[in-house]
């Protein structure tokens, strides 16, 4: 199934020329969906909206930078790899792009259990960009436009929907005609009031080398729509010239011998196993800490109080928070032909000459030269509790936000939100109801729910520990969890859907076949002499039970029962994983059902919590008013909510709903001119 890998990418440059038009030359002035920004969130959003069937326009400052990896040249990891798999299961781009551009693949946590395997790859920046651009430019219904958005066009709301405003389109900076759309997805990354910091200097911007975005957008969001914004910071390390680094002083870290692709559609990666490039590991020295301390007064980024990520700190914060230790630094390739190295763990914002002094304190970097210095970015984010689970701004109809603008960090988090916002923006434009993903079925659901119901206080990153049902939300079963659903939502192609259905059927049949193989443990022992079984003699065990044992593989069982099991050999690993986790997941099922039923109970968005005739404390009313949970499930996860409040709220909603449905029924019957009881009386006994 590696059709994608053998296909040739269209020559990107020539396509770019064709689509790099001015607004005046656009074929239309009206779209279903406009996506602003061409990063990981924007590209997924635009592609997803187009897949769902919306006429989509992607507006970005520079087409050249579409699909650029602004920071680390890698994709996936523990938790993040789960997101990539889920985006892929919904037919998104980043998984396939990773398989195309990867030059070093490894599955992290290999020894810790399949539920927490972290698919990860080092990427060739050039190839990644190529793939994303080619993919977007060949997507039907999707146009790409180079330009800078000057303002959002906002008008009065549609009275039939909740919200105080409605977005109607955008106006570009060059003063051309406005472009109208039913939905607009903003994925402006770090460009919202972004400032760049190096040493003591700062300049407006979201990424080195790119123009800052216009202040008009920030103003619209803050002043016109009244959205609450906060400030966050992040940073990136200096890029080093590979030739100047003495890699013999670092520890070689080879990739997996056999790359594991991200995408369910690929059985192999573009990069051949033997062509992969290694990473290198080295450590900081006491000299690094000394340079940091000596240069603190020259470092204004580190002195600011905007919140940075705790798990991706600059080298400054690392040595200040954990002094006297040596810290890991990974030296990662930037591409097959790139002459640069990316020192992961050395993000820094001191003046360039101090940066050079600092890195030279690390043995393999004794003579290293810096190609581009590291820098810090501070930027505004919109407090995501103001969004619905569809990632639409609650008070503004048609405005969707995704990526760092929502306070997250990381390519994978951005891609996941982008896809989700794109799907929902398109569904809205096509007058379809918003789609929902539960935290019981996906990491994307966990991500969105955490953002919209709890908000963020620091850049949000995915960890497997955030998922309550980690043992069911595994990388191996993302297709079973999401592809069928994605097909219903319109973002998954028929081909992929067909394949997912085939996989599901085969797995179900295989499990049934395994469960049908029942024997006493004595008989099993005879069949499989090498296996130690602790169970007592009289116990009857199925093939599924046996597969749970550590040293029983599906291959072993298939060799004993070839007639019924050999048809399923292609799923041997997935079946083994299923067998190990099934008992636990069966236990979780009722819990999952309960949470889903709470999540299905929506709370009206226009409730005035302060006057609601329900017994609620003032404190609880304030919390509810502030977070405006969209479902009862989300309300239960708010801090400070009491069970009494939840019960009362539930009661209120339940009764309101029941009353409404009764009224509707009564109206309906009135229309038909029938007495309800007469109808009952005529029913046959």
């Amino acid at each position: 199934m590696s059709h994608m890998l053998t296909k040739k990418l269209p020559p990107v440059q020539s396509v770019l020329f064709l689509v790099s038009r001015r607004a005046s030359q656009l074929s239309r002035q009206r779209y279903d969906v406009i996506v602003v920004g061409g990063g990981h969130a924007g590209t997924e959003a635009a592609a997803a909206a187009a897949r769902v069937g919306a006429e989509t326009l992607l507006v970005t400052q520079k087409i050249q930078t579409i699909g650029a990896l602004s920071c680390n040249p890698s994709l996936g990891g523990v938790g993040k790899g789960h997101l990539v798999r889920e985006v892929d299961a919904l037919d998104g781009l980043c998984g396939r792009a990773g398989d195309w551009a990867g030059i070093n693949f490894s599955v992290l946590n290999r020894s810790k259990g399949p539920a927490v395997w972290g698919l990860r790859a080092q990427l060739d920046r050039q190839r990644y960009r190529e793939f994303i651009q080619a993919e977007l430019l060949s997507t039907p219904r999707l146009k790409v436009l180079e330009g800078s958005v000057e303002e959002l066009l906002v008008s009065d709301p549609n009275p039939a929907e909740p919200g105080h405003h409605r977005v109607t389109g955008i106006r570009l900076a060059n003063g051309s005609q406005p472009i109208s759309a039913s939905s607009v997805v903003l994925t402006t990354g770090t460009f919202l009031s972004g400032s760049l910091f190096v040493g003591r200097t700062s300049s407006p911007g979201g990424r080195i080398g790119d123009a800052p975005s216009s202040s008009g957008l920030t103003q619209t969001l803050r002043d016109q729509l009244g959205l609450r914004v906060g400030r966050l910071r992040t940073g990136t390390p200096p890029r080093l010239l590979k030739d100047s680094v003495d890699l013999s002083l670092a520890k070689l870290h080879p990739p997996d011998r056999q790359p594991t692709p991200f995408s369910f559609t690929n059985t192999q990666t573009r990069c051949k196993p033997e062509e992969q490039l290694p990473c290198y590991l080295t450590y900081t020295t006491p000299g690094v800490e000394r340079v940091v301390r000596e240069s603190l007064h020259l470092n204004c980024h580190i002195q600011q109080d905007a919140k940075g990520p705790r798990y991706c700190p600059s080298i400054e914060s690392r040595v200040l928070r954990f002094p006297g230790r040596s810290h890991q630094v990974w030296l990662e390739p930037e591409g097959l032909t790139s002459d640069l190295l990316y020192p992961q763990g050395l993000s820094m914002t001191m003046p360039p000459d101090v940066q050079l002094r600092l890195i030279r304190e690390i043995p393999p970097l004794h003579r290293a030269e810096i190609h581009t210095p590291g820098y810090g970015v501070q930027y505004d984010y919109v407090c995501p509790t103001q969004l619905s689970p569809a990632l639409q701004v609650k008070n503004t109809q048609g405005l969707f936000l995704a990526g760092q603008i929502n306070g997250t960090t990381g390519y994978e988090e951005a891609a996941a939100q982008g896809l989700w916002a794109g799907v929902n923006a398109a569904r809205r434009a096509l007058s379809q109801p918003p789609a929902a993903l539960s935290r019981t079925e996906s990491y994307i659901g966990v991500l969105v729910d955490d953002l919209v119901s709890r908000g963020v206080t620091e850049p949000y990153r995915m960890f497997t520990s955030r998922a309550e049902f980690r043992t069911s939300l595994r990388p191996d079963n993302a297709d079973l969890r999401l592809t069928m659903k994605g097909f219903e939502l319109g973002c998954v192609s028929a081909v992929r859907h067909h394949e997912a259905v085939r996989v599901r059927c085969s797995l179900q049949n295989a499990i049934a076949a395994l469960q049908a193989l029942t024997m006493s443990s004595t008989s099993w022992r005879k069949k499989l002499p090498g296996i130690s079984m602790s169970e007592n003699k009289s116990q009857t065990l199925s093939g599924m039970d046996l597969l749970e044992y550590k040293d029983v593989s599906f291959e072993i069982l298939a060799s004993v029962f070839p007639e019924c099991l050999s048809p399923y050999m292609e799923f041997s690993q997935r079946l083994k994983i299923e067998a190990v986790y099934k008992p636990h997941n069966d236990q979780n099922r009722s819990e999952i059902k309960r949470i889903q039923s709470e999540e299905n109970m929506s709370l009206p968005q226009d409730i005035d919590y302060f006057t609601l005739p329900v017994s609620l404390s003032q404190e609880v009313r304030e919390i509810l008013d502030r977070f405006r949970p969209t479902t009862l499930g989300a309300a239960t996860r708010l801090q400070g909510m009491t069970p009494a409040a939840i019960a009362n709220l539930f009661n209120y909603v339940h009764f309101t709903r029941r009353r409404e449905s009764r009224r509707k029924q009564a109206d309906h019957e009135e229309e038909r001119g029938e007495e309800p009881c007469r109808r009952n009386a005529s029913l046959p006994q």
Partner: protein
Amino acid sequence: MYYSAIMLPVSAVCGGIYRATIRTLRTRNIPLNHRLSSGGRVLAGLADADTIFALSSGHGRCGVAVVRISGSAAATALRCMVGLGNQLPPPRTALLRSITDPHSKEVLDRGLVLWFPAPHSFTGEDSVEFHIHGGPAVITAVLQALGSVPGMRPADAGEFTRRAFHAGKLDLTEVEGLGDLIHAETEAQRRQALRQMSGELGRLYQNWSHRLKRTLAHVEAFIDFSEDELIEEGVLDQVDISVCDLQTEIEQHLKDERRGERLRSGVHVVIAGATNAGKSSLLNTLCQRPAAIVSPIAGTTRDVVESALDIGGFPVLLSDTAGLRDSPDLVEQEGVRRARERVQQADLTLLVVDSTILPSEEQEAAALLLEHLRSVLSSQDQSGAGRCLLVLNKTDLLPEAQREKLNLGLRRVSGLPPVCLISCQTNEGLKDFLTVLQSSVKTMCGDPLSGAPTLTQARHRAHLQHCVAALAQYRRYRDSDLALAAEGVRLALTSLGRITGRVGAEEILDIIFKDFCIGK
């Protein structure tokens, strides 16, 4: 009335008597993280297909006890425990029927049976009420039998009311009245209750919770970060140690012989022995009133007679039982069966022996007593012997010399429980007996003012047992699948969190970032 409906099942199900019920609780599936989420608990009834049951009347001495069942399996329970053929009784009509064990078909009691089909019941679900005799043995047997019906489980605190509320059976004003009760389950109040429970116990649980949080944080750190970071395998070794320590400590705590619970719900003291030994006289003497009928006819007491007492400040539930003998009388046979059952469930047995039948030679007397002990306490485990006092009654009929001989002689015989010589007729020796009884009761309750903190609630016991079981899951999967092992620690924390308050993912992440330098 809502008050009683909510509060009583708690004390009944969780009370000290119903060990059987607690055993059923123990085997239920371990609930998960989200159960903990404050609102989740309130709504547990929503998607819960379980059928619940509980004693809805008070426990202790009462004439009639009401056991209530609610949920879809209520009709099944009714059919398999009451001989009705395949028919359900007419709705809301009291019928006098035998109530039998669904498996052994043994008759447990004869009482009133009421059937309330949905939606016309308190909870709005199919409901059944059994009005049975109030003796703890009957109640225990019925609850135990209900627990063995598939799909049934003991009700959680306030669950009947919760279901009634969700079914729209209570209007808003009533709901507001309920607010406080439901409120009692909030985190803050739970913590407060914990704090009030006993400073030391609260601290102990908080300490476990704190250590478990750290342990989980370290496993999670190892899962989420170890591939990129300087988190060494040593972290897991520490986790192994703390899981092992916690498991041992909690198990130790659970082995407290239910002292704290006894203090709350009373020590169960059973008077047993051969017919005409003077058991009922002893009960009347201790109660200082004629609670039981006394006559010279052997086999006067045929059923269990209960009386609540205060002995040295400790609550005691004293039961007099039928004399143990083989009798052709069916009623007496049942009385003997109940007596034996009572002895098995007792915290302390007072074995009453007619001192006049003892041989005068002390060695022979001791041998006879030991033989007698074995036959009465036959099915009890070895430790049972320690929970017995030998009461030699009718000493007024013994010659002075013989009395002295027995008194001194029997004390020297090893293997015999403490011996007291009394006369219920003259009250001779009663004071010494009371001193011995009081010190036994005191040992069983533990001194609430000193020593290691003790468990006071069966609810806590159930959660702690889940906690220990979950920690075992960690050890089981530690080497093969860390995700499943971590699940064990998560479950353990969830169970403990039901006592100490909920622990969220953010709290775990906070610990991770405090303890480790994560610098990806």
